[in-house]
């Protein structure tokens, strides 16, 4: 089943928009059959709802605090992220992205969810990526394309 690549983020929160920027950048270079979508400003419940409408595997591209140097990226499965974030005691009106993914899973979504996370430099309010992140975009675009290729190969 075709891979769906989804860019997440807030375009008004600096490097939080990196997922949107990267997916937009790789759209024309995706392998055949790969679907690309942008979910700007999607809250966790929206992510859960939208995931339920996609049957195949999904790659979420988003800014993520992973303890890596700023500008670095990492491909990981959503299950790992869920384990990590579940112990976060913070509870706001909404629920966390990891819980949103867990919710989709509990509601019967079986196909894999992968995350291409990018460690942000600056997520302060304001439109546009930080200058440091802008310089990283060409490399990150290549890394994302490699990640997509790898996931497509794994499925074959």
């Amino acid at each position: 089943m075709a891979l769906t690549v989804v860019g997440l983020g807030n375009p008004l929160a600096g490097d939080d928009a990196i997922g949107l920027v990267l997916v937009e950048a790789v759209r024309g270079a995706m392998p055949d059959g790969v679907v690309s979508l942008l979910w700007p400003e999607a809250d966790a419940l929206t992510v859960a709802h939208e995931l339920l409408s996609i049957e195949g595997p999904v790659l979420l591209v988003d800014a993520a605090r992973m303890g890596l140097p700023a500008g670095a990226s990492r491909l990981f499965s959503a299950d790992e992220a869920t384990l990590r974030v579940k112990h976060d005691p913070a509870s706001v009106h909404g629920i966390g992205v990891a819980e949103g993914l867990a919710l989709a899973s509990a509601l019967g979504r079986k196909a894999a969810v992968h995350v291409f996370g990018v460690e942000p430099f600056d997520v302060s309010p304001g439109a546009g990526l930080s200058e440091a992140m802008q310089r990283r975009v060409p490399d990150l675009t290549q890394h994302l394309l490699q990640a997509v290729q790898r996931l497509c190969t794994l499925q074959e």
Partner: protein
Amino acid sequence: MAATEKTYTIDIHHVTRVEGHGNIKVSTKNGVVKEVKLEIVEANRFFERLVHGMAPHEVPWIVSRICGICCVGHQMTALKAVEAAMGVTPSAQTILLRKLLTESQFIQSHVLHVCFLAVPDFMGVPSVLPLASSHPDVVKRALKLKKLANDYTAAIGGRMLHPMACTVGGFYKVPTQETLENIRNRLVEALPDVTEMVRLVKTLKIPAYERQTEYVSLKDPTEYALYDGTIYSSDTKESVPVERYLEVTNEFTVPHSTTKWSKWHRESYFVGALARVNNNFDQLRPEAKEVADELGLKVPCYNPYMNNVAQMVEVVHCFHNSIAMLEQALNTGLKEEKPTYTPRAGRGIGSCEVPRGILFHDYTFDASGRCIAGNAIIPTSQNINNIERDMEAFVPMMLPVMSQEELALHMEMLLRAYDPCISCSVHMLDVEFVD
């Protein structure tokens, strides 16, 4: 254990599934309640100072950021306050669109709170995740409703969060007929999903606890008051104009809360869905009244846990009322307007109902149109006093029959039933030094 032997120390640090930081402290010794406190430890965010120096049209967009859930309500209330100060009267079309936006926000917020934050309490599970396994159909429907409400806000306001289409005196861009039709059709199609949510709420075991208090909400002679009205008290059965809101809120401070407390005709008062339903039941849509009856909500209702049932009733009201308003907009058609105003000196006060209760904004501008004073009093800050009074009454009543764990859980449930937004409730303490 005999009630006279019960010595409990409950210290819930950072209550979950509410917005912001609040702690609950309960202490009993040999069956006697020694202390019940709801501590609010959030820091001030200084929004009221932040708007100083801003132009009138900038204020509503800035204060929308007070809350990500009630952003529409803060924006609507600030717009009304600014328009009062600038002498601007919005058109009937603008008011209709603002009412649509307001109801979209009520659906968003209430669906989120009832289905994802409160229902787990009443079903004895720690979060919505176990419900996804036990009641997947209902949770999927709730997700669909939340998404629909988000799209509804975006369709009218330009985007889901902190809408940008609204400004002083009107809308920069009005939705197209096609957009209105799409939302109208989706709301109609989703009515069976709302019915399923009602069925779920009907199965909830609501704790049998009552305490009479004062219920305060907006009241409008022409409709169920969400966007406009006067400030009504269930104690006096009378209203006062919103311009006299300071006589209602009577804010004061207590040592254990960074949120200022409020009181009006008695020691505390209640705002929110239950206050609105209690005060304005007759003006609910017929479908909402039927659901209230089905869910056992009879007014006046003095059980704060029923606030979540009242929220469900309001979801039904907003669905049917929105469909009717969208029909009206489709029939009359919308036209683009050129909202404008002339800056001037003045003070304006606005009030709207937001999901958690009555909200007040108050701004003063100098002759150049720059904001020189701001005040925002949000529903949770008005409710905190009443929540603690409920806790004070609940603990001795339930101490004989509840274990420490049960009591702790019910304290959390009581707080969550009010759907508090603790971060937003903390606003700046005005200090005046007397020479």
